[in-house]
């Protein structure tokens, strides 16, 4: 059964795709999200990932980001992530030093 823990919306621009995730990311839906993300980002070089509406994310989410970053990196693309510093996502990005590998901004506005 499809989990309703997180929703993925994407908008394709000329030079990049914007992906907005709403909800929570954990062990129960990481595999499903991975499949969705790889479908949405196929053939894309640059991805903007808006995580400001993610209420919870654990190490599974970090793993998703690292994998996506590696894929884009090898094809010369770029991953940017938006998450407020004082949110759970912001905190866990700093804690795992993901922000030193991936570009993290407060928001895409």
């Amino acid at each position: 059964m499809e989990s309703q823990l997180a929703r993925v919306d994407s908008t394709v621009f000329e030079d990049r795709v914007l992906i907005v995730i709403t909800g929570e990311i954990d062990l129960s839906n990481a595999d499903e999200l991975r499949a969705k993300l790889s479908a949405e980002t196929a053939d894309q070089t640059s991805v903007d990932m808006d995580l400001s509406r993610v209420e919870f994310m654990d190490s599974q989410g970090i793993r998703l980001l690292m994998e996506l970053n590696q894929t884009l990196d090898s094809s010369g693309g770029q991953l940017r992530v938006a998450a407020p510093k004082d949110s759970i996502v912001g905190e866990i990005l700093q804690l795992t030093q993901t922000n030193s590998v991936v570009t993290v901004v407060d928001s895409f506005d």
Partner: protein
Amino acid sequence: MVFRRRARIWRTKHLGDVIDKTPHSDHVLQVGEERLRLALDAAELGSFIWYPNEDRTDPDVRMLELFGVETDADITLEEALTRLIHPDDRERYGEAVQRAVDPSGDGRLREEIRVLWPDGEQRWLVVFGRTSFAGNSNEVTQMAGIVADITDQRAAAEAEARLASLVSSSQDAIMTVNLDNRFTTWNESAERLFGYSAEEAVGQPVDLIVPEELRDEMQRILNARIHGEYLRPFDTVRRRKDGSLVAVSLAVSPIFDRSGRLVASSAVLRDISARKKLEAEAAEQARRSEFLVELADALRPVADPLEVQVVATSLLGEYLGVDRVFYGEIIGNGSEYVVAPGYTSPHVPPLVGRFALDDVADALLSDIRRGLTVIIDDVAAHPSFSKDEKAAFREGQVASAIGVPLVKDNDWVALLSIHQRSARAWTDHERELIEETAERTWAAVERARAEAALRRSQGHIRAIYEGTTEYTGLLTPGGMVLDCNRASLEFAPDVPKDEIVGRPFWEGPWWANTPGLPDRIRSAVSLASSGTFVRDELRLQRPSGQAATFDFSLHPIRDETGDVVAIVPEARDITALERAGEALKASEERFRSLANASPTIIWTADEQGKITFRNERWLDYAGIMVTDPAPERDLIHPDDVDLARTAWRHSVETGDDHEIEVRVRRADGEYRWFLIRATAQRNSDGAVVQWLGSSNDIHDQKQVEERLRESESEQRDARRRAELLAGIVSGLEQVDGLRNRARRLLELLVPDLAGHGSISWMGSGGVVNKVAVGADPSQDGVSFGLGGEASATMSLALTDKGLRARESGFLHEVVQRVGPLLENARLHQEEKRMALRLQRALLPNTVLTHPDVSIAARYESASDVMVVGGDWYDSFVLPDGRIGLAVGDVVGHGLDAAAAMGRLRIALAAIATQFSRPGEVLGKLSDFASGPNGSEFATAAYAVFDPETWSLEYAAAGHPPMLLLQPGGTIRWLEEGRSQPLGFLPSVQRSDASIEIEPGSTLILYSDGLIERRKEAISVGMARLRSELRELVDVPESEVCDRLLDAMGVGLQREDDVVVMAVRLGVADNPRFHRRFDARPDQLAPLRNDLREWASRREIPTSSANDILIAVGEASANAIEHAYRDQTPGSVDVEILDSGDGWANVSIQDFGEWLPETDHDEMRGRGTGIMRGLVDGFDRVSSEEGTVVSFRVSLAGKEE
């Protein structure tokens, strides 16, 4: 499922908000509609109004949801309905609608249909409709209706039907018996086992199948039932319709009603005749083996052939309880037989003597001559006997007989006869035993005869040897004369024999006239008495004064221990011979002529062991006559040559005698066993002058012994096999479950018969299950099909012993026996699985999750797999935000009770949304229970907690009172608000009561299984519950449930099912957070929701709460991923205590086993890294019970 329930709660709250915002000044109608709306929603019912004339339907949102239509979908409802109804149901549904709008009908629609949701899921719905007609006309104006989802009920009904078919198709005969001791149910297995159909058996008294002689046992069963005891399975016997008896294992369980009154009992009977037969066979086998061992022991020391027969026939006669047992030996070319002394009972005259075989009935004789055993159960009824023959038997008082012929070298040589003065039906076992005994005894007789012949031939040698001298006699080892022969007495005719016998040899008359000679004789005697053969030439004076020369010798005789027991003196006058050499030669020739008369092979050898002489018997045997030793050595079997050489070398070096058993080749080339003895002959100096030897053919005796040994070892093998097989069968019956039985079977075979073994079978859902035992799974195995529906296969890497067991057919026998045992275990397992699945289908999936209460509940089924109980519990949020809590118990067990339980639980949840007071709710539930969908007799307790006012309203219908544990440790029984049980005196006014709740109190709801004990007043159980609860202040509610079940002795053998539910009221203020959840990823989100609630209630700063969320999330995810890898997922415990000093102590515990870290476990490391970065005092401890992760989180928040 979890999801649906949560969704309902949210929606309920949302609607509640809407209502609150509705101005109360609106008119009554609107309020009424809202109330209906609310009731429909709480009951999960969709509604619609259909206007046939406009072909338009006005559905509510819930109805769309039920049909799986998305509210913003771009299709009309009619299209959707047409498309979504299952193709198989469309036509039926259309016709039902047509009937409902037909003016001649009753205008009602009730139809169950399947719909297909867009995601492919199939749901069952029921549609109720009521058609309105305009005025009195036939014109339809509209149809109003309600739609409900009945998928779960359908599933439950299907599970129930499946279980019912399992009961009826159970391998065991299952029946129930009422208080009048008459059968009330009778399943298909019972029909098969007893031959009575259900129609024939139901209503009959139980005596129908109880044999007369077991009426005492029946009384015992009834007594046990009166005391309400469960009778564990025991072995007994029952009678079939055709009158035959069948061995069964019987278990009886009493069935009680709510007041503890016995109402019926159920009996489960299993056919164990196959097992009984096997046990009887093993016992018979053991008894037989014991007899044969006893027989062998008794015969071994017996030397006399006649005595062997007497001993053997007596043992057999007493063992069988017959009247005569005797051997007859065939003589005179088969024309006569001689009856040897045997066994005769006191009731018949003995039978001894010689009989002509013509007297034996021809019919018997032809079989006997062919070597066949003759069995006559009843002489009078035997068809082959003539009138005269029957008369002859009668005269001998023989009514029944067995004759076993004994055959040697294809010739019939003897007959073992057994007589009985009354008719007797001989069993196969008895026949086999008699044949076995006949063979063995005859072998013993032959052995005894061979030994006797040997003894006789030894006597011959001595006679010959003595015959070589003229004078002889017998001395004691000390030299006293015991006897002397006539020739020796003639030496001195004047001395009477009396004066010689009893006196020392050296004082005898022979040397009295020769000075110095007595001393020389005396020293010769002393040499002989030490075991040395002495030979000398003596010159002595005859009494006449004449000188004479004697060849004199002293021959020591030894017993079997080597001690000298006698001395044989010998002397021969050789005066007439001029030279000693000639004398010797003459002596030799005389010896030869005598030796050739001997029936035994005898020979001499020089002091070096070289053969100097053999008698003619050797020629007869070997076909060659040589004196050189080489050819004889060639004739010894190559395997025995070394033994012969060693014996000779030893004798030549030391002068010791020797005795060996070797095989020697006969003239026709056959090797036969010989006993060869060599004895040293010595002169008076003690030097060996030559060797005297004999060779005795002991081949027949040897073979007899060999046969005896073989048959004894075969017997032992057969007994061991029977015991092993019986051991395997009973070993398997001691354990339940296919997996356990398969493992036990392998443990019985490995490592003895196989180095490694495995059994695999098809499980449910096509999964292949496998159990393996043993060290080396890489070995190639031999496969055996075990049969059964699961196609079980056993694979064994056989050891040498296992290969032999396969050759002998033993493994095949094992496979045949265990196949049905494994299949039975599988069927029982399947039944148990189905019963539990039904139980789960009928109980709520989870307890309510709600910020104001924290609930834990436990259901324990009764121990007996076939007992499905009627206990239930439920928790839900009411439309007004209050919380409903219920427990109940349907009287009785079995499917009816379980199904009624399911109906009552769902009905209470629906009724609770409509009525406010618990007494009212129980009243309506009682009405429902007494209706067609209810149950005969049930109890329930229902409470409503209002978190706004901190009050609890409650009522109990025939149910034991709830308990309230207050924060200070005070315990109160909620004893008011009690009324009669449900479905009993309908429509009575039921009271209820109310109590104020202190935050942090715990409400205990339970079923009577918790407090009831056999032979104990209920008040005792209630008192114990109260005192146990006193220990459980401040204990998390799930632990309260577990510890109550433990402490109240809800042990392994439960006769009833049990429900206990602990509800902490006002958890918000609890400094302790505790959750136990199944180790599944989908449990993480609900856990986080509960954590957020708890943190916000305790006003924990957001950043600290986030730290807790992340750290607890990582630790829980780790436990879910790693603790139960390759195992059935267990549970995870999360406990947090706000210690009040600005820190929260957190622990996450699992009860599984973490496998060693692998390269793929990068995630585990990342999660742990995150935790360490967030928390203080991180620690992880693993033990056999599981893993505990603990840490502290600061509650101070971050300085902004």
